[in-house]
Each structure stands twice: as structure tokens, then as C-alpha cells.
């Protein structure tokens, strides 16, 4: 597991709520004290990587006439974070 992607998964699990990928970038950038545009592409890459493991679900929703990806942590994702907390 890529450590930076895991760090993002950890952040998502603490929020534990569905969120637009775009809002997530803004929140995560604030948390990491980074410029959102600088980390945007990496976050998109990590989200898809995490979805490849089945740890998050990326759902395309139509909001205000336009498609937007929503991020939802799965039970497997929550279990993985829990497991990693116990076994660093």
C-alpha cells in the first residue's frame, strides 16, 4: 500500500461521510497546509488507486447539470484503516 494514499484513506475514514472529490481536495489541502491545485492530480490518482483496492467507492453523480465524483469509504476501507492502526 502506498503510504501517501494510505494517509488519505486515513483522513477519509476520520471524516466518515460521503464527500465530493473536489471538496475533499480542498479539505485535505487545508489539513496538509498545501496549495489545493498542487495536490489535485495526486489526490485523484490516490483516490482511484484506493478504489482499485475496494477501500473507497467513487460514484459519479449529476449535480447542477454536471457530473461530479463522490467519494465513499467502504467497510473494507474502514477495516483496513483499523487493522493498520493496530499493526503499524
Amino acid at each position, binding site marked *: 500500500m502506498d503510504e501517501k494514499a494510505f494517509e488519505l484513506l486515513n483522513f477519509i475514514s476520520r471524516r466518515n461521510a460521503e464527500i465530493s472529490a473536489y471538496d475533499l481536495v480542498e479539505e485535505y489541502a487545508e489539513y496538509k497546509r498545501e496549495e489545493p491545485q498542487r495536490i489535485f492530480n495526486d489526490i485523484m490518482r490516490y483516490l482511484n488507486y484506493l478504489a*482499485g483496492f475496494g477501500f473507497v467507492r467513487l460514484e459519479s453523480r449529476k449535480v447542477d447539470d454536471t457530473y461530479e465524483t463522490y467519494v465513499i469509504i467502504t467497510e473494507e476501507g474502514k477495516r483496513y484503516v483499523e487493522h493498520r492502526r493496530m499493526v503499524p
Partner: protein
Amino acid sequence: MNKKIISYLTPGASIEEREVKGLKLRIHPTKHERALYPFSKPDSCPVKLCELATIDPVARVFFFLKREILRVPWIYNPLIASFPILLPYDEQFVDLIFKRDKSVYAPIEVAQKDIDSLADDVFKLEAETFGLFMFELMKDPSFRSMLTTGRLPKKPKVILERLDNLITNPATRGTFDEILRKHHDRLGKIFEVLLRQLPLISGIEVLKEAKENGDTLLEIAENSVQKISETLLRIGNIIPLSYNAVCLECVLRKQLAMPFQATLLYTKDFSLIERCHQCSGRTILHRINIHAPSDLIALIQDERLPEAIVGYTLAQLEDVEEVFIHKKVNPVINGIVKRGAQIDVLAITKDKRLIIVEVTRQSDFETVLNEELIHKTTLLEQIGLKYDVFVCVSGLSPKINHGLSVIKAKRAFLLGLKHLSELENWLADRLKIT
């Protein structure tokens, strides 16, 4: 890079104002602006793809085709857009597959069973190997004493060394070799399912889409597979592509034990296989996989790439002065900023005419007409955003949409993929008479 295109405005900072025939427009970045940032870099993949799409109608249409989004746990390219394509094929045979005719469908059922039992087979394999290993280890007194005393060695290294002694010892080596041989043999069957059955089943699931995609590409490429191959080669020079081809006639009609299948990974030397190298059949199911670089991920998953492609196409027109891609636009009427709307592509001509384009990959006529064209033109009317031409560019098949659907009173036009391939010409003609 085309300077007429305004694709990225700094979120939270930039607002552009334009005046079009007495109507003032305030143009804002949207929530999705960050995805558009790569368009401000001339050498980025999205810019190169859009530039290719402006000169190559097959490439333009390609990104409107039906595709699946696959996500894989690979950190460099985790998003794959997979396009199933069926090029010239035996229609009677493909009909039999659609009808699930017994004469061709038996191998699909077998493949499906193999895939359904894949997870169980892997577990069984691992459990058996682990059990046989344990059985052999327990014959060794030092391992048995660990169980009886309940005391583990202080370091795992001790166990590993003991294990290494057992495996390399000529007296016991044969037994471990036998366990591994059995393991590899069963693993081979699992790989066979992954490599052969999985592409077949996943292909059959999207056969209808593959047929529609193939028909569309052939129509646009004037029935030339060579032209399609050349376009894919150009796309492959910009972004990593992989390619898979399965001969459905080998698998389903002739039911060969070794059916033809080809896979190319990350290739720049690309050519679609037209005839099966095994049975000479022509019903080959192709899959073109685009491994999205990170600056393309959001553009693909949120459908911004088709909007940008249309925007770049419009910017080619001599009459067009500026093109905004995916922006929120508020009309300002009598000094009052009215409610705004998200506009996929907004073009302003040199003589200040306003072209609004709604872009969708949707291919169902009713949905495109009601949920895209009528819905959007009604909204624009409500907020007072007056345009000269409204165009809805959709994924409607070139075959079922030869005629233009027009709502004359609204100056609104519904276009399909055939029109997309010649959009600049169509719009140039339209501007002459509007």
C-alpha cells in the same frame, strides 16, 4: 496551444466579464476548475489530445464512445478507460451470441462458472499448499517440540533457517518439490481463467456496446480499419494504451482449445487485428484501454474531456473569437446579476454572437432531448441568457441521426456523432445563416 480558449480561471479569484449584443455576462470558474488546470500547460496530455481531436475526426468521436471505467491498485496509472470495439464482423454469428443460442453459448457458460469459482479455487489452492507444508514441517522434531513446549524461538530467523535446512536437504527436498509442482499446476489453471476466460466474459457483457462503438468508428472512418488504427496510434503517442483482442469465432463457433487472443501493453506500435491468425474469422472483440495519466483522471471520470474537445473544435473557426470551457455564467440585466447556469462550452464570435454548447456522451434520444436539450434551453430562457445558437452535442449514433433535430423557435440543435466529426463545418455554415 489555441489562444482563443479560456479553460482555466483561478478558483475564487478570476471573474471574466463580456458584453454580447447589449447583454452583459459574468463568467466564473466552477467548483470543477482544478480539473481544467492542465489546459493551461501547452505540453500537457489533455491539450495534446484535444489538439489531435481538432484535426482527426476519428479521435474526436473516440472519446464520446461507450466505455467502462476500471480502477486498479496500481499507483502510477490507477484509472483505465476501456473501450470495447467490434469492427467488421459476422452478423449472423453475433446475432446468435445476442440470442444466447446453444450452438455458441456453451463456452461462455463454462467460462462464467470458472470465473465464479475463481476466489474459492485460489483459497483452496493456498490452503492445500499451506496444509501440505505444515504436514512436512511437523515431521521435523524441532518444530514438533515448539508445539509441545509452547515456546517460540526468540527470533523468526531461527525458524527460517530451520525451514531452509529442511527445504534444501536432499532427503526431504523431493517432497517439497512435489508440493510446489502441485501448487504451480493448479496456479496455471487459475492464470488460464484470468487470461482467457475473464477477457471473454467481460467482453460478452459489453458486446452490445462494442458493436455500437465499432459501427460508429467505421461510419466516421469511412469503413477503413486502417484509419481507425492510425488514429489509435496517434492517441497512443500521447497517452499509454493497451490492447486486447479475442477471436470470438475461435472461442464460440469453432470452440478451439487454443483460441486466438492477443494482448499488447503500453504500445506505440499499434495496429488493429482484422483477421484471426488462427481460424481466419473476422469477429474479433477488441478492447482499447487508456491508462490515464494523473492530469487526465478527473477530466475522464467527470466527463470534462468531451467538453474540452468540443471547445477546441469550435476554436478552429475563423469567426470564433473566444471559447470558454465549463464555466458558470450569470447574465447581468439592468445592472442586476441574475441566477447563473453551468455552461459546458460558450463561444463568442468576432461579431459578438453567442454560441452555447451542451456536451453529453449520452446516446439515448429521449434522454438527450429531454434531459439535456429541453432542460438546458428552458433554464437559459428562465435566467434570461439569450444566445444566437444552442447546440447539444451528444453520443447519438451516426446511423440513427442523419437528420438534424431542431427546435427552430429556440434556435436549438441536437447533434449526434456524425455531426461531431464535422462540427466545425456544420457550425461555420450555421453562422453564415444565423
